């Protein structure tokens, strides 16, 4: 990596390197056990079916041998077809049994595996939904997504690509070995002698291919990043005449992947023929030594034939075994990462027994911060904050970047819990409210104004899943979003596109206001909800805000003081502490005060 200075340096993701260990750690094993807990019967059934299929497969060559030794002589001697027909009938039975057992175990293993994968998907999704916002801030959405996609896929691929074949390969290796020793142990020992080089070869291949596999993954990932970033940033690429430099870089990355895949190809190119060679040499030896034993009368021809047929079953599965090792390893690493994240407890836990809030009298509820202290890791952000917001009051929170405004908002939305002190809603600690009750009372809107793909109506309905069409449209009207929505083709049924991409930022924000309006919370928090809008859009939203706020308790954070103008009260925050508090008019009058100065510099920016 250091050979590519252009890439720059980045901290390695801590969960990627720790996962290289091939053996499942106890945490992964526990998770696996837990996932399989409900399916013990099916596991046993699957293994039984595999055993039956393997035994039936083993019986075939044996019966061929018997047919040759016991069926043909009576037929040739005196035309007695009885023994031959009996052997053939037995053979037919094993063929049918094998087919049925094979079909059943593949299906059974498939269902088992998919059950586990389905369960895993659901658990992961639910877990990530449960985890606090601070966890998500830290863990990043990219990793949330890869846990649920590529890691789950790795486990799914293991089941799909032949955990069953793996089990049956091991089983048939053991059974065939045992069968050969039983049939004729001296000849059996000759075959087993071939096992030495095979084990050595396979160990070598396993080790090398693990390295090659990792290199291949790393190098293709770099190719993909370069490709996707170039195509998504095509305007910057072309505007800055980046194509030649990109060709160079891509050539380098493409060659890196070429080297890695060539290495993998060559590993297989050596390993697979080597296995064939061992198998073929053993076949030659069996032919010679077995022939001698037949001539000496130690065994019959049929036994030799059985051996020759067994040899195929003995060596072929080994090639598969080595191939599966990579998917096995990938699945193990994935399970390790998944079990790690599932083991994290939510930092904002649900209460053991929830408290019911008193009935809402007016539109809002009172909020109180009582001695609240909070910090991110070692850094303290808020230190002993006491703040009371009476029901129905609109309060603006201002201050410089890093003053702790967003933290106050997030504490009120219970995205975090305070380290010390309490946040109370109508006198009830937020920690004593269960999640649905809290979310029905407190809603926060940020500048993210994230929309989900689907229609506008779908997105508004998110505020109240039970809402009917009329409620949705009246929310749109109340917010003043009705005009632009109805002008869209499809109106409320217009598709907003991926992440709301078909709407402008202002329109998205109006939809998210309508969503919050429909949710009808007692407390509304706006965190920089209007910063990214242009002035006409902001004006549109301002108008909507007055409808929104109504009798609710509101906390508003904004850089641009225009948003603050609608507040009953302004609090200036600095370093996590309140430095000014009062109605905007009064603060403005205190001409040397912090708020007055901020206001002045903001106004000069407009001039």
């Amino acid at each position, binding site marked *: 990596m250091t050979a590519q200075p*252009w*890439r*720059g*340096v*980045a901290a390695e993701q801590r969960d990627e390197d720790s996962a290289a260990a091939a053996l499942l750690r106890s945490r992964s094993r526990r998770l696996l056990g837990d996932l399989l807990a409900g399916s013990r019967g099916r596991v046993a059934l699957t293994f039984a079916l595999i055993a039956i299929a393997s035994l039936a497969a083993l019986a075939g060559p044996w019966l*061929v041998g018997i*047919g*040759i030794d016991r*069926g*043909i002589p009576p037929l040739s001697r005196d035309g007695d077809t009885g023994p031959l027909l009996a052997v053939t009938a037995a*053979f037919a039975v094993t063929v049918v049994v094998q*087919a*049925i057992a*094979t079909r059943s175990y*593949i299906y059974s293993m498939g269902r088992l595996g998919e059950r586990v994968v*389905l369960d895993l*998907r659901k658990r992961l*999704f*639910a877990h*990530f939904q449960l985890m606090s916002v601070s966890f998500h801030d830290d863990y990043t*959405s990219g990793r949330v997504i890869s846990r649920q996609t590529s890691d789950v896929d790795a486990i799914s691929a293991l089941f799909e690509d032949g955990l069953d074949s793996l089990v049956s390969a091991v089983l048939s290796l053991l059974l065939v070995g045992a069968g050969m020793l039983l049939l004729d142990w001296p000849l059996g020992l000759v075959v087993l002698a071939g096992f030495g080089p095979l084990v050595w070869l396979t160990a070598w291949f396993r080790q090398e291919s693990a390295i090659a596999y990792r290199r*291949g*993954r790393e190098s293709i990932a770099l190719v993909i990043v370069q*490709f996707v*970033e170039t*195509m*998504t940033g095509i*305007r*910057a690429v072309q*505007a800055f*005449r*980046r194509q030649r*430099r990109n*060709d160079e870089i891509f050539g380098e990355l493409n060659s890196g992947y070429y080297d*890695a*895949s*060539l290495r993998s*190809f060559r590993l*297989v190119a050596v390993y697979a*023929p080597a296995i064939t060679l061992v198998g*073929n040499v053993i*076949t*030659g030896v069996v032919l010679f030594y077995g022939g001698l034993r037949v*001539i000496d009368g130690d065994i019959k021809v049929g036994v030799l034939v059985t051996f020759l*047929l067994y040899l*195929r079953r003995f060596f072929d599965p080994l090639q598969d075994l080595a191939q599966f090792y990579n998917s096995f390893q990938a699945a193990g690493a994935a399970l390790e990462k998944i079990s790690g994240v599932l083991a994290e407890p939510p930092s904002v836990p649900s209460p053991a027994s929830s408290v019911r809030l008193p009935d809402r009298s007016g539109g809002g509820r009172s909020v109180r911060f009582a001695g609240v202290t909070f910090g991110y890791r070692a850094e303290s952000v808020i230190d002993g904050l006491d703040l009371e917001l009476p029901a129905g009051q609109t309060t603006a929170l201002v201050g410089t970047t890093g003053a702790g405004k967003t933290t106050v908002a997030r504490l009120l939305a219970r995205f975090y819990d305070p380290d010390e002190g309490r946040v109370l809603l109508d006198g009830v600690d937020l920690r004593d409210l269960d999640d649905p009750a*809290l979310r029905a009372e407190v809603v*926060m*809107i940020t500048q993210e104004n*994230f929309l989900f793909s689907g229609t506008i109506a779908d997105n508004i309905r998110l*505020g109240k899943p039970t809402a009917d069409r009329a409620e949705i449209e009246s929310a749109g009207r109340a917010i003043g979003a009705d005009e632009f929505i109805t002008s869209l083709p499809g109106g409320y049924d217009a598709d907003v596109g991926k992440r709301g991409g078909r709407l402008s*930022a202002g329109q998205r924000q109006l939809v998210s206001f309508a969503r*919050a309006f429909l949710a009808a919370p007692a407390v509304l928090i706006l965190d920089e909800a209007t910063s*990214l809008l*242009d002035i006409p859009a*902001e004006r549109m939203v301002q108008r909507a805000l007055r409808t929104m706020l109504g009798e609710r308790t509101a906390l508003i954070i904004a*850089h641009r003081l225009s948003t603050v*103008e609608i507040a009953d009260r302004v609090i200036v925050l600095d370093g996590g502490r309140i430095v000014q508090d009062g109605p905007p008019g009064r603060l403005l009058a205190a001409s040397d005060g912090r708020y007055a100065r901020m206001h002045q510099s903001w106004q000069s*920016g*407009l001039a």
Partner: protein
Amino acid sequence: MTFRGVAISLQSVPPERSRGQARLPAQETSAAALRRIGPYLRPYLPQLAVMLTAALVGVAAQLAIPLLIKSVIDGAIAHDRRGLLIALGLAAIGLGTAEAVSNLIRRWVQGSAVTAIEKTIRGDLYAHMQRLHPGFHDSWQSGQLLSRATTDLSAIRRFAGFGIIFFITSVLTFAAVVILLIRLNWWLGLLTGCVFAPVVVVCTRFERRYRVLSRRAQDQQGDLATYIEEAAAGIRVLKALGRRREAGRRHAEGAAGIYRTQVDKARMLGSFYALLDLMPNAVIGMILLLGAFAVGWHELTLGGLVAFITLALQLVWPIEAMGYILASGQEAATAAQRIFELFDTVPAITDGPPAGETATGSAPEAAATPEIPETPETPETLETPETPETPGSPGSPGSPGSSLAGARTSQATGGTQLAFARVAFGYPGADGNVLRDITLSLEPGKTLVLAGATGSGKTTLLQLVPRLADVTAGSIRLDGTDIRDLPLDVLRARVACAFEEPTLFSASVRENVAFGAPEAPSEDIAAALAAAQAEFAYDLPWGLDTRIGEQGMSLSGGQRQRIALARAILSRPDVLLLDDPLSAVDVQTEARATRALARVLTHTTALVVAHRPSTVLLGDTVALLDGGVIAAVGTHSELMASVPAYRDLMTMSDEPGDAKNEPLPRIRAG
């Protein structure tokens, strides 16, 4: 960024029998599509010949072994000849070694050939893609392009590497085995051949049906991944509204769909593998029974019977392979169609015609262009092209800002004149133009601010200058030369832009800033960072070597914008295009950055899109864009005084009618 939705096989050891790849419905031009891979294969024809020879040697060695077994049983054992037994044993080992060695040769050569072919096609594809006009990329998701460069390419690699060779060898193997069987015993041989042949059909049908299911599963997984991405990115909204259960339900629905398809796949796979076991075993049972009679009737020796059985087993592989090959051939054909569809797309925006062929009368002396180095790495060394005399300068006299008196001053002042003459632009396929009749002139060294409501076409207008899209009508001229008559590299060296939505790449800060000028010296980078107020970059963990972008440190929106701004400043363009470059920067930093930017703009011709009064102040003049036309041009104060639409855009206060209802004091700008 995650690259989900694109199922890429990250397995570096490609299984020869991959269980299921995406497949589109076959089209009638499959063969034609496969033929187009030809030129890429041609350099490797000697390798292909080696592979084929090795494969045939391997097959021959493999087929000879059952015949040796026959000799062992009928010759050595039946007649008690130990000497012959030794010879036969050694011969078997020799043949076995030959098989292994030829396998080694085939796989080794194959590995280098197919990976090299894949690398070449991928490199070509990338180079082609990044030269296609941005309009093309707007209509294609990068994920779709990526799946062509990975999944489809793998399908071609598999077919080129294994398909062709295996096709030939499996046909030959099948034929050779059946001939050998017939020679051993004609009626039993014929019967065996006839029983096996139909299995090819079954295998092919299975592979096809299985691939349809795999495709469905892939689509479902893609859909679920999309929802997972949304739920991860929108987690704060879901949490703020407490919609955990609803989201969980929606996710569970998608996951259950995948489960059902996967179980269907397992069921189909189970039947297929059972059949693959059943068929040869049944045939062996048949051979055992009938062969024994043949032995009894002295039509077949005992050794012949054993050879027959072992040979018949060798029919399984070619048949199984044939099903795979036919399906993968079809898959490769579809993949080739998808890839060549991209290669067939011609860049719509290309260099101007070479000097001398210039048809545009207004730039007769565009001959200056060939003297310009093709890739000017350090734009400051670039001579501004000879400004041609432009007596008939474009622009109708009546339209605002049409004064072109200073058109020839660029040499004298070191600045460049940029002029739009009756420019119109419409997106292909959309009716109506987004921009109409835009006539504007920027004198050298001056800054023009474009203001207008969202959707008025400001960003679109900016993109026309570096020819990220071409005008539909009218022309844009740089010092009098139509930009379409300039080589793209020359044009884009003279014009630099910073967009509102900054594009950072997963590379070091240094590489990101020196994006258009990889050879730029450190002092220039430092100066650009300073001018863009992006000195925060030195405080990142590894300073300018810190990787940023999706795969590195995440920066705030304002930080990203300032890096992008530094990038534009670094290329020292003649014309700077800035699309609201400080919209995400906080108020205090914005003030500092604006001051620094004002210094940079003193000597550069610049076109700046602005939403906020603070940015508008960067300009000498302001043009108001409204509904795709220039509604007014003037200074900020002129427009504030005389144009209500502009006032409306730049001040927070509501219209007088609304103001009456306002109990709160309003702030008025200006």
